[in-house]
């Protein structure tokens, strides 16, 4: 099968600067070998708690961060230079969490949407305005809104503008980094149904990054579960949800059961996510895992399995 993109063992380390107050220079291990790929027209959901590296991975795809090691391929092309990374915006576009912070407050919607078109070399003003008109209708905004500024919109409408900006340069994949977390419940669903409709209409792919497993499950064809910079489990949505193998995935699913009165909270993983300042020797989840054994502390289990379901756990 042809993939839109494919990563092989992507790692990303950040160096925190040393100083009088912060002490010695430290290294944050944000991504520890991510190997994923995506087929056209598919939605890949990436779930995990804060600090697990899901946004960092999205930014590596977008070319905003250069990976420390590992390879990213888009189509058949290997992206290994800064010049190659600068072309990634033809394939990827991004929708951010905060629709207010991610739009320029001094630019009207038309100006915001025109800029990518100009960069793409669309010279005729009439063509541009026709395209803007079309895209606004596609995301459910009135074309007459194009002369408005971001502050004149509600949160949900702003996020629609953000989606329009991502769509206008015809990318094959949109990276949605927590696109609905800042919105109210009733508005969240409006945005989700919009993303769904756009996918049916244009066969676009999404990388949907979120901490909300139930939304990810609803929208995604495949899900990757991340923990402390590792992918601990990956597979098709049905397989992963119905037969979760990793203890962490199992806990996440248990905490996202359908809402029922007085539902028991059930067993919760004790403790907290360890610091990403130290690469764990063994399995990253071992410190909180109810089923841990000697070998879990010794070596990191590889992500193994078939195309439908892969898991990184010694006991599976």
């Amino acid at each position, binding site marked *: 099968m042809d993939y839109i993109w494919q990563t092989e063992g992507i790692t990303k380390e950040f160096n925190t600067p040393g100083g009088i107050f912060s002490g010695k220079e430290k290294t944050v291990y944000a991504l520890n070998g991510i190997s994923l790929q995506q087929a056209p027209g598919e939605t890949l959901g990436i779930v995990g*708690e804060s600090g697990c590296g899901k946004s960092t991975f999205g930014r590596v795809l977008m070319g905003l961060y250069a990976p420390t090691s590992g390879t990213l391929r888009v189509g058949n092309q290997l992206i290994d230079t800064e010049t190659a990374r600068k072309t990634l915006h033809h394939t990827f576009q991004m929708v951010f969490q905060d629709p207010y912070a991610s739009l320029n407050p001094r630019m009207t919607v038309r100006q915001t949407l025109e800029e990518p078109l100009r960069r793409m070399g669309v010279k005729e003003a009439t063509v541009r305005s026709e395209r803007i008109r079309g895209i606004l209708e596609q995301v459910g905004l009135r074309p007459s809104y194009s002369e408005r500024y971001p502050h004149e919109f509600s949160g949900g409408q702003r996020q629609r503008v953000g989606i329009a900006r991502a769509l206008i340069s015809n990318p094959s994949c949109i990276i949605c980094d927590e696109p609905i977390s800042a919105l109210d419940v009733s508005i969240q*669903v*409006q945005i*989700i*149904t919009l993303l769904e409709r756009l996918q049916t209409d244009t066969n676009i792919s999404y990388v949907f990054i979120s901490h909300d497993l139930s939304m990810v499950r609803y929208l995604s064809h495949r899900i990757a579960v991340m923990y402390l910079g590792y992918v601990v489990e990956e597979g098709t949505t049905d397989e992963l949800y119905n037969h979760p193998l990793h203890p962490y995935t199992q806990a996440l699913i248990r905490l996202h059961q*359908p*809402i029922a009165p007085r*539902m028991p*909270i059930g067993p919760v993983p004790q403790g907290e996510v360890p610091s990403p300042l130290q690469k764990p020797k063994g399995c990253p989840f071992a410190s909180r895992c109810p089923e841990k054994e000697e070998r879990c502390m010794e070596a990191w289990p590889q992500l193994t399995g078939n195309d439908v379901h892969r898991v990184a756990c010694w006991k599976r």
Partner: protein
Amino acid sequence: MSDIVRVKGLHVTFSTFNGPVQAVRDVSLRLAAGEILGIVGESGCGKSVTVQAMMGLWPTAITTVEAAEHTVLGHDCRSFTESDWRTLRGTDIAMVFQDPMTALNPIVTIGKQLEEVIRLRQKRRRSDQKGAMTEGIAEEVIHLLRQVGIPEPERRRNQYPHELSGGMRQRVVIAMALAGKPKIILADEPTTALDVTTEAQILLLLQKLVREEGMGMIIISHNLRVIARLCDRVAVMYAGTIIEEGSIETVLTSPAHPYLQGLLSSLPESATDGRLTAIEGQPPDSYHMPTGCAFHPRCHKAMRICARITPTNSNVSDEYSKRERVQHVREHQQTRECPHQVSCWLYRPEVK
């Protein structure tokens, strides 16, 4: 069993540069000891304002708080001055806020912050607890930290808030709330800033503490999952009013108000036929409230009367609430009425 909080007909109005804003309109609430009441609603629906007004937290200069009845722990609070409030807040009534970093003092160790509350409590209750001064404060700090599940309390109490993780900080905030030995805990989005696994840990802790100590708790959340896990009763707010109220069982299994029905069917896990249904439109702007029912512009069941007259609370149906009452009594061994109430013209016999 008697109510420890009773509020009837609460109105909160802010005066702003653009004119008055009615943030809370005609809200009535009650809370019994040992009970967990949830208030759920979207941002800006007035849930926090309601609870803050119940604690007298709004400055009178810009805010008008009116209520037909406002009783907290037997005190009539309508004529309370700021110093009257201060005798209740922090000890008898405690609050747990959303962001633990801003709720804690960053330059004081958590042990010192806990001690402060314990001292305050001892000072206020000196008359009934003679001789309890200064002794055992250090032991109590350690006991509190242990009670909220903080490992190595002897070491942790000398740490500053920035040295703790988000979940640990929220545990400290809860410990501070407990330090006053409160009868009422008001938790405003206590887990919104936390990750799901940490959230579950904190919810378990709150539930255990409330049940053990027999306190009453009001928990505010926009997250129905949190409310469903924790609460006995729930009040659903929309645009400054309570639109539906009842036991958690009835409200979640047979929601009456079209807004709540829409909200529940827009949860991804309830998309049984594979499609989500969204509530169209957005919550009203507080400066331009629609006439009649505030939800009618978004309601697909709206009738002509909905746009004209605001509906008042009514029981969903008599037969219904009777059955529910029996069930509630059986479960809780107490004779409290818990009618399922809704503010919607659809449930009024005169409209039918």
